């Protein structure tokens, strides 16, 4: 569905990059096979007693949510919507591991309580004393886009004024080991090459990226969120899905100034992104997972970068995936998928 009144007015982020990292001018620190988030100081925001019990996803989520609301100069929101591919993996792992190790005895409920997928959205609601609509999506690589779509729906049709939307995922030692076992993520010894990948798996990371969507443009506005579409598999072909999407938005491929792709240094995933890239041979292709690392909702970091590019009207060289330079910076299309499943298309426009 195409909308014409949904603005991105605030952004908050916790990522694997340094706290003062500015994608517009700094070179990103190179990634490893596994990348912990660089955590800001949380104690100004969250009481110390609570912080000790909180897994990184909850902390990152509360922080990024807070930052997005502040960035937009807002104080309240009419909906809180999160996406998470794996949910609260650290608490899940802790409860599961204790249950198995201790043979179901002497279990503390704390990690169980915090293991549900909607813990981050719930903790944000508690933090803000917010009683509004509160949803959490967990659908692989388009978990964040499902949340973003819902946010757009809330603004466009349900008359919400401000909506908080975010994506969050966290590392967890034992689960990560299993994901490496099935080659979803790289081993320490694997080479990392985003342009010509030779090894399987992506560079595991964690992070939180939140956005304040608003029905009104302000001086803080980054971009207009025109449309979001997600689908498990193309009905006929990717080309048809992309064409339909652009047609619904009354634009053509030539109107897309940058195509954001989720290239993730996984040799097995390369062709899935190439399948989108070849549809836009004359467009600048950009990548971002060499900055954010990879997790199910890292595409939210892509949206953060894309929105900043439209606001600042400048493109950092570190994200160029081909040699084409955009002639203008008006429309950015972001595409994501995982092994041909859980695809998403996000279209934003300069204000």
């Amino acid at each position, binding site marked *: 569905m195409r909308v014409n009144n949904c603005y991105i007015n605030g952004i908050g982020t916790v990522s694997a990059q340094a706290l003062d990292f500015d994608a517009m001018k700094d070179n990103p620190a190179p990634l490893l096979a596994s990348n912990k988030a660089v955590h800001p100081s949380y104690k100004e925001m969250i009481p110390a007693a609570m912080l000790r019990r909180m897994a990184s996803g909850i902390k990152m989520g509360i922080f990024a949510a807070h930052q997005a609301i502040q960035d937009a100069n807002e104080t309240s929101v009419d909906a809180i919507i999160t996406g998470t*591919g794996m949910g609260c993996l650290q608490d899940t792992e802790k409860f599961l591991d204790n249950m*198995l190790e201790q043979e179901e005895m002497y279990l503390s409920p704390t990690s169980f309580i915090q293991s549900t997928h909607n813990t981050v959205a719930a903790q944000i609601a*508690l933090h803000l004393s917010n009683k509004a*609509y*509160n949803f959490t999506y967990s659908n692989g690589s*388009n978990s964040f886009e499902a949340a973003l779509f819902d946010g757009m729906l809330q603004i466009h049709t349900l008359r919400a004024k401000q909506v908080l939307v975010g994506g969050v995922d966290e590392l967890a030692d034992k689960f990560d080991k*299993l994901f490496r076992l099935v080659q979803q993520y790289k081993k320490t010894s694997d080479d990392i090459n985003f342009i010509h990948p030779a090894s399987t798996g992506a560079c595991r990371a964690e992070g939180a990226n939140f956005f304040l969507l608003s029905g009104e443009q302000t001086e803080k506005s980054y971009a207009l969120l025109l449309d979001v579409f997600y689908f498990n598999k193309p*009905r006929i072909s990717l080309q048809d899905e992309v064409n339909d999407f652009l047609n619904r938005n009354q634009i053509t491929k030539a109107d897309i100034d940058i195509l954001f792709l989720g290239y993730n240094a996984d040799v097995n995933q390369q062709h899935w992104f190439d399948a989108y890239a070849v549809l836009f041979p004359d467009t600048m292709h950009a990548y971002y997972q060499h900055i954010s690392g990879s997790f199910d909702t890292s595409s939210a970091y892509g949206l953060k970068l894309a929105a900043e590019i439209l606001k600042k009207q400048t493109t950092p060289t570190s994200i160029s995936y081909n040699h084409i330079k955009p002639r203008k910076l008006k429309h950015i299309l972001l595409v994501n998928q995982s092994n041909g499943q859980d695809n998403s298309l996000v279209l934003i426009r300069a204000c």
Partner: protein
Amino acid sequence: MMYSGVAITGMGIISSIGNTVEENYYSLIHKKSGLSYTKHIHTIHKEKIKVGEIALTNEVLEELLGLPNDNSFTRTSLLGAYAAKMAVEDAHIPDMSSSRTGLISATSVAGMDMTERYFHIYEQNPSLQKYIHSHHAGNCTQKIADYLGIKGMVSTISTACSSGANAIMLGATLIEQGVLDRVIVGGTDALCKFTINGFQSLLILSDTENKPFDKNRNGLNLGEAAAYLVLESWEQVQTHSKKVLACISGYGNANDAYHQTASSENGEGAYLAILKALQKANLQPDEIDYINVHGTATINNDLSESNALLRVFSNVPILSATKSYTGHTLAAAGAIEAVYSILSLQKATIFPTLHFTTKMDNSPLIPNTEVVHKNINHVLSNSFGFGGNCSSLIFSKCV
């Protein structure tokens, strides 16, 4: 003809009280509980707690679904595919690609039933590693979509015990907004050691059978189930002359913002969710004929829900708690209770609540305990979850 709400054209369910809609109805009107000691789960609690377990084993479900031997379906996906298939058959959909079709499925357990079995032995057993990919919630939905041949908008909602209701709510919005012509909505959760131990560690599992809204209630029984509805646009209904089972006329979600797991005493989140649902349905409280309460039979929930109902309704309508039959089926609860609400409308029947004997001290509400036949136009169904997530749905006869 004027229509209000979103048309429901099919439904499918599997729970501990039946493998079909008809079997579930039979159990409800014959007061047949599905609670028993577990036969499938190897837990140290197996002789201490009763659960709402579905008798069919994974092997039988795989056979019924005609899955290949090398499939990586977890029990959650098996139950989900089974119920969703029945819903699709009920709605007579010969070709999924004939219109824009989506799937919005809810789960909280997802692939945990396999993860907890193999977590420590995956490394030594390559043949089991296919289940590592099945752990996450989205995989369960992916499998159901692939099984049914759905290509298009597919997503998963995971908001703990209100997930199923929220999937129905989102689906209704997608139809109303013309985003989709047809959407299959519902939820699935299998029993597993993880949730049994989780609720046990919170000390909210009953050591007998749960007694919703009873003074002597002492906790919930866990259950497993899956249920799905098919929602279609009115254009679809008219073009294909579809039978319409009932309508979704109202829905609302709000957050209690009180505590990660406990509900506020005045039931603020529930109160707000019910008000939103009434407003959406354009109904006054006194137009609700029957309430399928969340009614988990924990001390905290039933009092909080009771207080919320007393705030909304000057005369609280007749109510029942069907978790006394099925146990609390978590992400499936909102979906199976949607099926029960639709059955109430269709059969003009209010279901009994089992195990109730004594009125609560601090609430005047008494759940219905007998089969009551009366004309019902509007049913309210409540689902509340961890994280203060409160959802209410209103099912109505289509007019």
